């Protein structure tokens, strides 16, 4: 009968919908993660991370995808549909450095990824690495940066010849969203305080709105201490005593500057992990250094940044035991001066290339693997 046919169709459709909403695909207890190797040194450091994860017996199966921009229907640039599908299914991604082409006609890949998955929070934990000496010790802070609006809205106009106006956009929703994420992060990671960084004395309405939203959200998280500080005061105090800071939440531009400042405190972009959290539960973890095309393929690249980002990813997925194991092995390797000194000079400071030939990655992996065998 028509009614029965209709009901069975409905139950078939409903059943299909239900299985699609499962957050991750499980097969034999393995979780799928989309890996985007990237350009330049990307492929080699990605394979290093995969090898290390294999040795540590992490229950992850990798799905490799490419994100070169393609022109979709309607002329809009987008990432390849296979990549999007894979990410939507697995919800977790690990990304290597992507080349930003100049004058290729399309926006940067990072921007495309951000728009596609609505990656609204950029999280960068900056922890001093034992064994890697910088003038700053005992740094342990997290910068959480609003990643979708603010000064990077890209809206600029030439008013008259010689006068340019750039628009900084602050919205209630985005500010509330990032504040909520920051407080939740603080709660889930046992952090004591959240500091909102702003310049509301000068930008009264925009940063004032951001600050108001942070204050409102703070009311719901009484277990986490909330403070506010001017951007210039934060910069001043950060270079004198970074131990004073815990979790920092801020709009886009300040976040960009401060997160790089903090990365500089612990040793540069070659050792800093980074994660991007999106709406709908998507999270992409990445290494933020460049593609280093001049040392690509020469086995000289330093996989630390990608590895630590992968560790951050494991923590996000709840695999704390594996995360600890790999992190400890990584730090032990760094403490081993023989391997470390040659690796860090290039990627740590973007501008200072040092070319030396040594089978670095294999040494690095080897020492990591040997740690696992001991366990």
């Amino acid at each position, binding site marked *: 009968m028509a009614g029965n046919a209709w009901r069975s169709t409905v139950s078939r459709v409903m059943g299909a919908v239900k299985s699609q909403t499962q957050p991750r695909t499980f097969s034999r207890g393995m979780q799928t993660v989309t890996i985007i190797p990237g350009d330049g040194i990307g492929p080699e450091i990605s394979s290093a991370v995969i090898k290390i994860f294999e040795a540590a017996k992490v229950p992850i199966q990798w799905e490799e995808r490419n994100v070169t921009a393609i022109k979709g229907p309607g002329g809009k640039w987008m990432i390849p549909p296979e990549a999007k599908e894979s990410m939507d299914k697995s919800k977790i991604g690990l990304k290597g450095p992507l080349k930003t082409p100049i004058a290729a006609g399309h926006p940067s890949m990072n921007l495309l990824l951000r728009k596609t998955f609505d990656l609204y929070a950029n999280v960068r934990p900056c922890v001093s690495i034992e064994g890697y000496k910088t*003038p700053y010790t005992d740094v342990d802070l997290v910068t959480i940066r609003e990643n979708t609006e603010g000064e990077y809205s890209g809206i600029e106009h030439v008013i008259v010849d010689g006068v340019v106006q750039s628009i900084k956009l602050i919205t209630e929703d985005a500010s509330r969203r990032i504040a909520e994420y920051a407080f939740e992060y603080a709660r889930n990671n046992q952090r004591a305080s959240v500091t909102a960084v702003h310049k509301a004395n000068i930008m009264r309405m925009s940063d004032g709105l951001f600050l108001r939203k942070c204050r409102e959200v703070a009311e719901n998280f009484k277990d986490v201490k909330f403070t506010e500080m001017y951007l210039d005061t934060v910069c001043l105090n950060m270079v004198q005593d970074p131990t004073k800071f815990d979790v920092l939440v801020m709009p886009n531009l300040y976040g960009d500057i401060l997160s790089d400042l903090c990365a500089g405190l612990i040793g540069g972009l070659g050792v800093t992990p980074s994660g991007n959290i999106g709406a709908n539960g998507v999270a992409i973890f990445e290494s933020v250094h460049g593609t280093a095309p001049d040392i690509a393929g020469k086995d000289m690249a330093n996989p630390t940044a990608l590895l630590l980002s992968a560790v951050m990813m494991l923590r996000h997925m709840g695999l704390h035991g594996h995360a600890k194991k790999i992190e400890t092995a990584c730090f032990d390797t760094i403490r081993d001066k023989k391997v470390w000194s040659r690796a860090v000079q290039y990627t740590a400071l973007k501008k200072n290339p040092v070319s030396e030939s040594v089978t670095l990655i294999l040494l690095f992996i080897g020492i990591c693997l040997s740690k696992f065998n001991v366990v």
Partner: protein
Amino acid sequence: RLLTMNDSPISAHQPPPAKYGGRHTVTLIPGDGIGPELLNHVRELFRFCCVPVDFEVVTVDSSVVSEDEINNAVTAIRRNGVALKGNIETNHNLPPSHKSRNNLLRTSLDLYANVMHCQTLPGVQTRHKDIDIIIIRENTEGEYSSLEHENVPGVVESLKIITRVNSLRIAEYAFKLAREKGRRRVTAVHKANIMKLGDGLFLQCCKEVAAGYPDIAFDNMIVDNTTMQLVSKPQQFDVMVMPNLYGNVVSNVCAGLVGGPGLVPGANYGKNYAVFETATRNTGKSIANKNVANPTATLLASCLMLDHLGLVDYASMIRKAIFKTLSETRLHTADIGGLATTSEVVQSIMREVQKTGPLTSEYI
């Protein structure tokens, strides 16, 4: 190389002429927090050293809504040409119609160049050594235009204005200053990869001006990389020029690198006026009236002012005394790791001046 020369690079610059028997009149704005007490020390020191400067004190109450007081201050500065000020607090919880008084002062007087010279000082413990950076920051436009509106409820737009005229002006100032001081390189700090039109225009103007100074090397760096480089290798920088907000960030980072907000003086120059203050413009509310604030930055700012007025001998006499005192660790205030009080430091400076110069009063 310590600050000894006249800081103003405008070669045709004439300091405001001395009136009334060789004495200059300078506007003094006490401000809030530690401003009043530190500026009192300046007056005390000037009296002791018989500096021919009279201060016209103009108070600006930060809690008052009306802008009359700040306008009075602006008029006084127009009259005298030079001012020394403490920071005026801005309550950012007040509505946007209540603008920052400091910003109003800067824009009304068109003090377009904020100059800060950061150098490692002998006797002060810091993580980095051999820093010697001059930071020139555009002081009137950029993100500090105070143009904001809410078109749709919940969506606020803030305008950052960059103009060709002001960018050329600040770049010209930077290169002129670099040449006068014998500096080798000027670095423009920007974010033109993201703000292509705005910071792109700024960068373009700097490049144009650089072409006219072939003896000075010019390069540029993106602001986030700049902060990273500053905390790892600050010795690589010489002179830096940048728009307003990045200037705020970079000057605070550099001040932190050389020892903190209590040590670095700042100057704001316009075509006709000059206002001197501490470089990082802190109110220091929490340490106000406790006799613990570091007077070095304010005193060095007053020396910059004396240089500007042409009273170079007095300036170097006081500066030498300040640096001699700074080299004594037991005379360090709390912010640089010591236990001395503000008055102890000032007394010591006065004693040093007495030892070296003949021009002091009997009263100590």
